[in-house]
């Protein structure tokens, strides 16, 4: 088991998300950076639906009661194991009773916001509606449907494969799949239903200006600050289904991007939708950083999804080759 010794706010057990339950009004939840979680799971030989711990407020300190293979992916959080540094995105082994500490992301070449503690076998909390993800709004899934607190004890599943090799690292997703415009991290966006109902100047601004991630940004949604987006005429819409990635514009003209814990419906006009393949990039955008929107289309969105899938497949292939070679 994993014992939480110290924990900042809003650390949660997350997996790929709870798909297929939106029809009952149950949102997706899941890791804000799904590629980081997937990378950690691949390093440990886990299935891709294994759950890890998402950490966004530091420090997090846990004791691993049994000898465990683990990896910390996502943002670099200067992890230490019994005081010794552990490299990010790298498989490592903890002896029984070892204490793992994750600290705030240090300045580096790539700045992220969230890190993922993955363990061989995954965090084995009960599956609720097909997923182990913590759904904070509905208080279901994860560990008792809530963020972790000091004193929590989390069960670890049985490793799928024999002991994973330690000291194997991955080139982090943020570096393997870079996307920036004028040096500002970017995400690709599909124009949404009400896009044409904004002034030409606002539409141009939407694509041309950087948008600041305000402190009112969390797993539910990111409130952005930038130029005011003006509709051609006031819009009043009935509530309708929405998804993570939808960019709404409330009356103040400052966009909100719905994120993993988005409620399943809303009534604000939608100017765009961040494509699914780029949501992880937002998940790593720190408060106060800027993002740019890049216009794409349906084919572009599918190509981006394929690109991410190809990266994961390459990782799996490279790891498999390494394991076969070392087993030979």
């Amino acid at each position, binding site marked *: 088991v994993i014992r939480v010794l110290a924990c900042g706010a809003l650390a949660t057990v997350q997996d790929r998300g709870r798909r297929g339950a939106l029809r009952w009004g149950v949102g997706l939840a899941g890791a804000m950076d799904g590629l980081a979680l997937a990378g950690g799971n691949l390093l440990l030989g886990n299935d891709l639906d294994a759950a890890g711990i998402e950490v966004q407020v530091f420090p997090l300190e846990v004791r691993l009661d049994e000898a465990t293979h683990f990896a910390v992916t996502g943002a*670099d959080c200067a992890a230490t194991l019994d005081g010794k540094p552990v*490299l*990010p*995105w*790298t498989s490592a082994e903890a002896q029984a009773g070892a204490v793992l500490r994750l600290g705030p992301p*240090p*300045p*580096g*070449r*790539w700045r992220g916001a969230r890190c993922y503690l993955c363990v061989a076998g995954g965090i084995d909390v009960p599956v609720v509606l097909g997923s182990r993800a913590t759904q904070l709004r509905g208080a279901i899934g994860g560990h008792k449907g809530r963020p972790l607190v000091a004193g929590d004890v989390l069960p670890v599943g049985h490793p799928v494969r024999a002991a994973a090799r330690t*000291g*194997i*690292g*991955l*080139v*982090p997703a943020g*570096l*393997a799949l870079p996307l920036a415009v004028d040096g500002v991290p970017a995400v690709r966006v599909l124009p949404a239903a009400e896009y044409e109902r904004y002034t030409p100047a606002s539409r141009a601004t939407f694509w041309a200006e950087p948008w600041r991630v305000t402190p009112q940004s969390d797993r539910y949604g990111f409130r952005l600050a930038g130029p005011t987006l003006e509709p051609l005429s006031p819009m009043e819409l009935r509530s309708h289904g929405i998804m993570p990635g939808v960019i709404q514009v409330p009356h103040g003209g400052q966009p909100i991007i719905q994120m993993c814990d988005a409620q399943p419906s809303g009534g604000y006009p939608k100017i765009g939708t961040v494509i699914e393949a780029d949501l992880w990039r937002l998940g790593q955008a720190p408060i106060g950083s800027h993002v740019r929107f890049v216009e794409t289309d349906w084919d572009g969105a599918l190509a981006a999804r394929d690109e991410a899938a190809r*990266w994961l497949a*390459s*990782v799996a292939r*490279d*790891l498999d*080759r*390494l394991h076969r*070679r*070392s087993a*030979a």
Partner: protein
Amino acid sequence: VTSPFNRISELAALLAAAGLDELELVGPDGRVLLRRGADGAAAPVSVEDEAAEDAAFEVVASSGVGHFLHAHPLRAQPLVAPDDAVVAGQPLGLLRVGTLLLQATAPRDAVVARVVAADGALVGYGDPLVELWPEE
């Protein structure tokens, strides 16, 4: 007609000449893996530097073909610098091979004498990466 099995000795000679430790050919009908020597492990091998007159320091050599990195790509700070004391198993540098980052580790407790390979340099099997002074 062009089966690689007819040319294994030729391929092996090419591998030896190029200093590569293995060659994998993957085709629609199968896979051929040629590996030189008994040691197939990916962990960097450690070889004595024959050139050193007094054999005072030890060379940590590359286990294969890849790009040698002084620092983890998320970090600006190099993993080690000259005069750093390192412990057995500690990563001295990283070899970027495809999507992977493999560690060149210290074979024993030692002090870093020199990081030989340039940051980002393409290195091959056996190329010197880091020189270590033995622990006093």
